[in-house]
């Protein structure tokens, strides 16, 4: 028994680079050999889906892209899933970006969904207003007068010349807001300055880390559901019946989480053995 304990203690003091290697393999292998684990939507994700389903046809939806390349794996799948859901239901999409990186992400998402998959017309079915600096001042500006903030869209076309922008002058003219957010400025600013004062319903998709900050607002009803990280994106893809990157990442995330749990358990076993030995000697 002592030899087993010695071995466990020796393994417990391994260089952390071995841990990194094992985690790397735990993430990589399921991507090549998918397990196809079933995905079950949580209540928070279902609320987002129901909020979008409840929109009347031809609703005007404002989507704000507040993430960059670093958080793209978590949030881009939810943005793509949402766009597919909105275009399938025949809604009009208006895109704004509070982060400069967000505009690149928005371009990618709309190219993939609006142009390639749905073959929609820019200016009639969707429009990208683009990035404006100013953080929450942009949100406040949009609440009072969009045209003061956006004279042209992201492609340089005058906003007054875009058919879809007819009768759109402020946030209250939209039927729904969705914030795809990875930090500041993001969901909290949209709730504080846009959704709460105007009463326009808002849903959000955020990184897993940020969910804690937003959950109180979801529970109080200020935010209509939340897509929580990549699991949230995968759940939404399952609900709309269009599995994508979010779904394919869940096998890897599942195995990685399991490996981390096993590391924690193993770490505690070594801790107990150390404590027992120190008591003994």
């Amino acid at each position, binding site marked *: 028994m002592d030899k087993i304990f010695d071995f466990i203690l020796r393994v417990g003091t391994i260089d*952390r680079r071995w841990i990194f290697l094992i985690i790397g393999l735990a993430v990589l292998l399921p991507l090549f050999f998918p397990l196809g684990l079933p995905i079950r939507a949580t209540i928070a994700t279902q609320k987002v889906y129901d909020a979008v389903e409840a929109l009347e046809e031809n609703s005007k939806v404002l989507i704000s892209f507040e993430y960059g390349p*670093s*958080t793209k794996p978590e949030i881009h799948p939810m943005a793509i899933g949402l766009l597919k859901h909105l275009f399938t239901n025949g809604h009009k999409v208006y895109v704004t970006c509070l982060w400069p990186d967000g505009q690149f992400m928005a371009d990618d998402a709309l190219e993939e969904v609006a142009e390639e998959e749905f073959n929609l017309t820019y200016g009639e079915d969707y429009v990208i207003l683009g990035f404006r600096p100013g953080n929450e001042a942009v949100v406040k500006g949009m609440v009072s007068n969009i045209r003061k903030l956006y004279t042209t869209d992201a492609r340089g076309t005058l906003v007054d010349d875009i058919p879809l922008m007819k009768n759109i002058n402020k946030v209250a003219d939209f039927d729904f807001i969705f914030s795809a957010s990875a*930090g*500041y400025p993001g969901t909290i600013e949209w709730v504080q300055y846009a959704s709460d*004062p105007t009463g326009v319903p808002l849903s959000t998709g955020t990184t897993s*880390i*940020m969910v*804690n*900050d937003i959950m109180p607002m979801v529970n109080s009803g200020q935010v209509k559901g939340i897509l929580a990280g990549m699991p949230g994106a995968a759940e939404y893809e399952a609900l709309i019946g269009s599995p994508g990157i979010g779904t394919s990442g869940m096998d890897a995330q599942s195995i990685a989480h399991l490996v981390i749990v096993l590391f924690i358990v193993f770490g505690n076993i070594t801790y107990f053995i150390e404590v027992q030995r120190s008591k003994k000697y």
Partner: protein
Amino acid sequence: MLKDKEFWLVAGGLSLAFILYWLLGHPLLNEERIVMLLVIVIMSANLIYYTRFAKKGGEIFLREIPGLKAVEEAVGRSTEMGKSVLYVPGIMDMDQVETVAGVIILGHVSKMTSRYETSLNVPVSRSIVMKAARETVREAYTMEGRPDLFQDDMVHYLTDDQFAYAAGVNGIMVREKPAACLYMGKFFAESLILAETGNSIGAIQIAGTASQSQIPFFVTACDYTLIGEEFFAASAYLSQSPELMGGLKGQDMMKAGVTAAIILSLFMRVLFDLGLIKWNIISILTVQ
């Protein structure tokens, strides 16, 4: 600070002016937000009262905050090992209260490093923070009588981008191996990257942030963490200035008031839901 008589004259004058304004029909005032205005006035009055109380010599008890006690220990450790202190004031700009609080704590840390002649490295993520932090450090070194030890390059700009900044700070940690790493400010996802790298080089790490989602990462990876309000209390704790300590006491009393208000509101809402009263307290507490 105003003397008692002057203070009450000013306070009385302002109150009278507001009463007159109200009686004259309060033009331009957004009535829907009057409750919030009253709350702000009451809270501010509370803060001012305790600040004056402390300034006049009133005793204020401040509990021990291990993280702040450890700051001097961390600087001392760096001095003994002949290595530098790395100070990271967050990744946001001076428009965030946490960043300002971080820069203020930097001033106190700079006094210690100048006293012990320890080198200080402050990589920043924003240009305005660079200027503010530089002035703070310069002042601290001058006040300690060691302006000769101060160099402009102690506080230097890296980049605005979050992860590029994290990469830059990690590079500094791995190359220069500071003995103490202090993270005081607003952080996002890069917090664990910084803290784990600091852990790998064996540095003593003290973190302070009001970014709720990053607190668990700092608690896990750092030796000491200032959680939420402890971070805002740091300035008062380190300076032991009566005004700041009074402000801290006022803050605690505000918290007691808010707790009482929550319990009272809960009780009144229950009565409303049961139909025993007709008045919905939520309607006046909702901010328009």
